């Protein structure tokens, strides 16, 4: 290349590109409200050119005192708060909390209730993974797959609305049961939903999975190995993408997962692309689980969905209006709430992000002493600065997307 002002010497030689130019480190503030992150979090990034030297993750912008609120109401009043931990998968948090309380009360729920819980929980998991994969595409500037993902999520939420009565904050699970059985037209809607969602996942797969830009942005970025995952207690799709087949639905089966046929996908290298593939496969597995639940529930026919335990169940309305004892019981249930015997218990479920645990401490009264939520988002986010040291600034976006930190659950 020749330039009339500088003679024939090239402006930039190949050597210049090879040379490791020293630049002054620069501090970049990213967030707490940034268009390329779906989560309210602030990154304080120390940059050397485009390379991340240091990363401080500052969480807490959505802290609203979840534990404090739970510790000042009855055991029942905490359930709506659990809805608001993870806006994608409220049912999963409901199930985790209610099953932890049931563990303290030593309650065994009826079989139909357990199948219904699995059905609702898996629908929630699909909604969560759809948001993760769809929003990741959006933040990598791919609008079309995002719309496919969000359309499928809308279908999921419509179905959850038909089942629970609410799209997002479903509040469906009760201590000792579920709010109600599935409506009569639900099975047909569910079959149609499964068909449509499989089609949308196929469309999503067609535009994304082998898309050159998408693959280049994800492959080899945000790598985490299994030892680091275990040291940081990382669980869920991130741990599985690093090749550890750990899933609480298999390792400590709860509800009816031991009667259901499904597989646990794992990755090989633990990069963002593996995480994407694990999540997509988990959605297909969840659809399989939903099908099995539906078949089982239809075969079983109507039955009780709540325990007949007067400590946690309200009496039937007809009896409340006509009988003294039930009226008193209803009054006490509403004004005082159930009493939980003194003790402590930890119960964890496999949520879409990993191990969602509840550690509860009771002193025999109707108010919890401690409601600790073990938030997978918070714990999975901790190793992120290590995952990104030495990486390019642009790698932060897909890595953060596939960690899928949900502010409500991370900050509580």
């Amino acid at each position, binding site marked *: 290349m020749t330039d009339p002002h500088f003679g024939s010497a090239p402006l930039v030689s190949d050597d210049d590109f090879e040379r490791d130019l020293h630049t002054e480190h620069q501090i970049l503030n990213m967030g707490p409200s940034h268009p390329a992150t779906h989560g309210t979090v602030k990154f304080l990034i120390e940059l050397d050119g485009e390379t991340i030297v240091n990363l401080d993750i500052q969480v*807490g912008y959505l*802290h609203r005192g979840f*534990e*404090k609120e739970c510790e000042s109401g009855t055991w029942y009043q905490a359930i709506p708060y659990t809805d608001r931990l993870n806006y994608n998968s409220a049912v999963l948090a409901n199930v985790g909390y209610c099953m932890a309380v049931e563990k303290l009360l030593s309650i065994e729920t009826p079989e139909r209730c357990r199948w219904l819980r699995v059905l609702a929980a898996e629908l929630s998991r699909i909604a969560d993974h759809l948001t993760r994969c769809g929003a990741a595409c959006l933040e990598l500037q791919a609008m079309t797959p995002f719309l496919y993902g969000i359309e499928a999520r809308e279908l999921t939420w419509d179905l959850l609305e038909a089942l629970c009565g609410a799209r997002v904050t479903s509040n469906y699970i009760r201590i000792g049961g579920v709010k109600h059985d599935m409506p009569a037209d639900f099975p047909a809607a569910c079959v149609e939903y499964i068909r449509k969602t499989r089609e949308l996942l196929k469309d999503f797969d067609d535009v994304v999975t082998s898309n050159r830009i998408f693959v280049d942005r994800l492959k080899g970025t945000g790598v985490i190995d299994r030892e680091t995952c275990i*040291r940081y207690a990382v669980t869920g799709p991130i741990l599985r993408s690093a090749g550890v087949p750990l899933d609480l639905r298999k390792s400590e089966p709860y509800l009816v997962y031991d009667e259901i046929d499904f597989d646990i996908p794992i990755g090989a290298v633990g990069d963002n692309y593996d995480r994407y593939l694990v999540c997509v496969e988990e959605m297909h597995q969840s659809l399989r689980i939903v099908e099995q639940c539906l078949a089982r529930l239809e075969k079983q026919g109507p039955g009780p969905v709540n325990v007949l335990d007067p400590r946690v169940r309200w009496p039937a309305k007809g009896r409340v209006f006509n009988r003294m004892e039930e009226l008193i019981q209803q009054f006490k249930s509403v004004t005082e709430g159930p009493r939980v015997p003194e003790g402590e218990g*930890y119960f964890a479920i496999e949520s879409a992000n990993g*191990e969602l645990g509840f550690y509860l401490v009771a002193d025999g009264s109707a108010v919890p002493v*401690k409601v600790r939520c073990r938030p997978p988002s918070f*714990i999975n986010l901790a190793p992120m600065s290590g995952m990104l040291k030495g990486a390019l600034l642009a790698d932060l976006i897909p890595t953060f997307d596939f960690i899928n930190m949900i502010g409500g659950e991370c900050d*509580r």
Partner: protein
Amino acid sequence: MEDHGSPALRRLMDALPGVVLETHAHVGDATAVVERERIGDVLEFLRDDPELEFDMLTDLCAVDRLPRVPRFEVVYHLYSVPINQRVRIKARVPEDDPVIGSVVALYASADWMEREVFDLYGIRFRGHPDLRRILLYDEFEGHPLRKDYPKERRQPLVGPRN
């Protein structure tokens, strides 16, 4: 002391005599209350013992048992990937000296969780590399999950205070 059928509690009591103060297995969760000063030794033993390998510190939190004395409990939930077992370790921390040894050197996951306990309960972790608030802002006064912190108290960072 009773081991409640948990190999973790049995081996812990055999290896470190006198460290375990109490055990129970309420609703099936094997639990040991240990000496506060030996928490690091206990977790190190449980992590490195070849038959237990509790390689994951799943959860770390605190409980305020006001008006009990000692007031606080720091609770560690450990999980072993190789043997698929859980154990809960607790240490009691008094109100007038709310300090316990940090376990960040043993489990990296303790880093953020210890910061959270420090933030919300005011329990300090000796040896933590970077003990600062994590969920709340630096200007926040007090520790909101303590039972004597009023739920209705407002401390906005901007705008009028109360």
